[in-house]
């Protein structure tokens, strides 16, 4: 079995099954992992705490090992939720036009689109930058809380399935770039002030990106199986 492990701190490269002469039996499926980028088959090896296993052919991250993932996840998701609430409570941008002040927040933007009868655009905006990010963070909090206290396995499974369906539709990071683009567009014309919410939204997006990168749903399933297997 051509197992090669390069230990190159802090990363551990894992590679296996390059030439598929080796036999795989049905009960070994849990030990395998398929890279989500290039679909190369790998066999999992145990890695030390804090390291990552990388795909051999495309160098993408296959899985991590983080023994305090649940605690970190809970802390980050609560912080993220607080930042998200703050980002929606105060104005994002403020402009001065001929002595009149105009402010904007995510929800006032949606209201404005509905008023001008662009219902479809309003629907997209409210789902992609408000409902889905809020749902994702509420799901994360519930999920990590249930995992931490080892309750309700059924609910955890349903939340994980729901999570993997809505994560690709979360576009808060793209919304942040859009704010910057519109600031540049307005810069020559008007006097612009950046609101408090802009900074909280930036922090929220940083946490959001960090969480989607460091928490793989496949790993959460594995942790879930380990946690709920033990007590019985």
């Amino acid at each position, binding site marked *: 079995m051509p197992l090669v492990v390069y230990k190159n701190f802090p990363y551990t490269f894992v590679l296996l*099954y390059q030439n*598929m002469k080796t036999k*795989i*039996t*049905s*009960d070994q*499926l*849990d030990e*395998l*992992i*398929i890279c*989500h*980028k*290039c*679909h190369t*088959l790998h066999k999992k090896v145990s890695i030390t705490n804090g390291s990552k296993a990388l795909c051999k052919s*495309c160098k993408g991250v296959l899985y991590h090992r983080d023994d305090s993932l649940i605690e970190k996840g809970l802390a980050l998701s609560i912080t993220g939720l607080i930042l998200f609430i703050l980002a929606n409570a105060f104005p994002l*941008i403020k*402009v001065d036009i*001929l002595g009149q002040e*105009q402010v*904007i927040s995510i929800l006032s*933007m*949606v209201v*404005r*689109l509905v008023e*001008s009868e*662009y219902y*479809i*655009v*309003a629907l*997209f*905006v409210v789902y*992609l*930058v408000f409902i889905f990010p809020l749902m994702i963070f509420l799901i994360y909090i519930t999920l990590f809380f249930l995992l931490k206290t080892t309750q309700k396995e059924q609910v955890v499974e349903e939340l*994980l*399935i729901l999570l*993997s*369906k809505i994560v*690709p*539709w979360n*576009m808060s990071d*793209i*919304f942040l*770039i*859009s*704010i910057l*683009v*519109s600031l*540049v*567009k*307005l*810069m*020559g014309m*008007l006097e612009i002030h950046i609101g408090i919410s802009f900074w909280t939204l930036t922090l929220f997006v940083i946490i959001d990106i960090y969480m989607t990168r460091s928490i793989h*749903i*496949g790993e959460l*399933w594995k942790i879930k*199986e380990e946690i709920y*297997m033990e007590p019985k």
Partner: protein
Amino acid sequence: MEDKRRDIYGAKMNSLEEEQLIRCPICEAVNRDEGKKNICRRCNSKIYQHQKFQTEKSWAFLITAIIFYIPANLYPMLVIKQFGNEDGSTILGGVIVLWEMGSYPVALVILFASVFVPLLKFLLLLYLLISVNYSLGNDSKVDKHTLYYITEIIGPWSMIDVFVVAILAGLIHLSSMEMVAGAASTAFALSVFFTIMAAHSFDSRLIKGRK
């Protein structure tokens, strides 16, 4: 959990080939490809069950997206009402105005997000959908999994223009100067939505073995 699995697979403890293994798109577990009815052994979700129409669903979404992309480029994206004048600019028109104003980076970002990304996605999906059914010469060296991954990653970035329109329309509405969303914003948002749907409904099993 363990026992259940052995019940399902216990009778067939044969060795498996790499081609028979598929990845559950929901929970990332490795499953064996049973052909018609694939239910993930870990999360019980269906994995590409539409055998009778493997590519048709993706084709339908892609064609819808391309149709919506045409009005998205012809109609104005943002209408500026100033002192009684109405001035609408299309996507390309907006890029040209920004370029002339001298803000080159923003012009390039918009050009990339609203022109290159959608076109690249259309071309990549067309190529993938055609190449899994018909052999296109010597394409064995093309890494289609990577192409598919690229289409999934770049998809959401085209929404930038829609969000910018929503921000500007929400921010500037005075009697002397007003910005409102144009007809193209709806068409463009729908086009982006349908390309993402087309990418999601593409059965990546079809690429398998033809890498």
